[in-house]
């Protein structure tokens, strides 16, 4: 009996709502009338990381906070602000974590140097191979 009641209770359970009752912000899912500005906004939104769904960009995420950030980006672009200024405004608040664009900070140097290193290793292996063949 207890189990049946429990099963019925579980069927009636509803996931806790984690979203607000307010509609999405005006520019969150609406393109700017100026296609050049919209392209700028889109390019920036593709490179700003969502704080809620941390693997997604704010352009991809359905989280409300991502919608509010898209609204913020489009509003500022429409007001004539440069995308780089908006990015650095966000980085000031959340750190370089918020941006998908690799920085030139020392922490990212291995990332920039890795291709060079791999090329060197490749050249070394190639030289080794050619020598083996010749002998």
């Amino acid at each position, binding site marked *: 009996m207890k189990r049946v009641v429990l099963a019925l209770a579980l069927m009636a359970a509803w996931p*806790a*709502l*984690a*979203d*607000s*009752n*307010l509609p999405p*912000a005006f520019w969150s899912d609406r393109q700017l009338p100026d296609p050049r500005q919209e392209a700028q906004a889109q390019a920036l939104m593709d490179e700003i990381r969502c*704080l*809620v769904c*941390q693997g997604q960009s704010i352009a991809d995420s359905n989280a*409300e*906070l991502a919608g*509010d*950030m898209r*609204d*913020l980006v489009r509003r500022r672009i429409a007001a004539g602000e440069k995308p780089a200024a908006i990015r650095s405004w*966000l*980085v*000031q*608040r*959340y*750190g370089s*974590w*918020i941006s998908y664009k690799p920085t030139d900070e020392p922490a990212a140097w291995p990332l920039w140097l890795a291709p060079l290193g791999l090329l060197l290793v490749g050249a070394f292996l190639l030289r080794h191979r050619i020598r083996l063949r010749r002998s």
Partner: protein
Amino acid sequence: MRAVRFVPLALLALLLAGLVWRLATPGDTTVGSKLQGQPVPAFALAAALRAKPGLSAADLAGGKPRLVNIFASWCVPCIGEVKVLQALKARGVAIDGIAVRDRAEDVADFLARNGDPYERIGSDPQSGVQISLGSSGVPESFVVDGRGVIRYQHIGAIEQADMPLIMAKLEDAK
């Protein structure tokens, strides 16, 4: 030179060990605000309720440390946090609220149900001030000193066990 053969195997073992280690001890995914130690960015929020004043950056530079709590009526952990905020208020802590994406009637209902520890509540309908503070969700709290400088950010609900920590941070901010 024979040992060189085992280098790829060793690299693989190293990679696997790294992956297993990360699976066993997941990294910290909270994103802290970089504004700690810096002044609260300028903002002015309209009142979330008719009965209480709104909140602006100037209100946070009134000479005494304050606790700014970012909450929402639709946020479940916020319900439990109110009790702790009430206890902090009873100890003389000045608490202001920022209601994120909320409606006046919902905020009023939330406070009537759970209690009201706030002196001022600003309404942040599009999370703009939340983003400008470097906050990434609800609930979050900021300890702001008397000159309006952010001294500490608490991510997630303030639990009973966090009270001494919050009191100490407020004391440091004096």
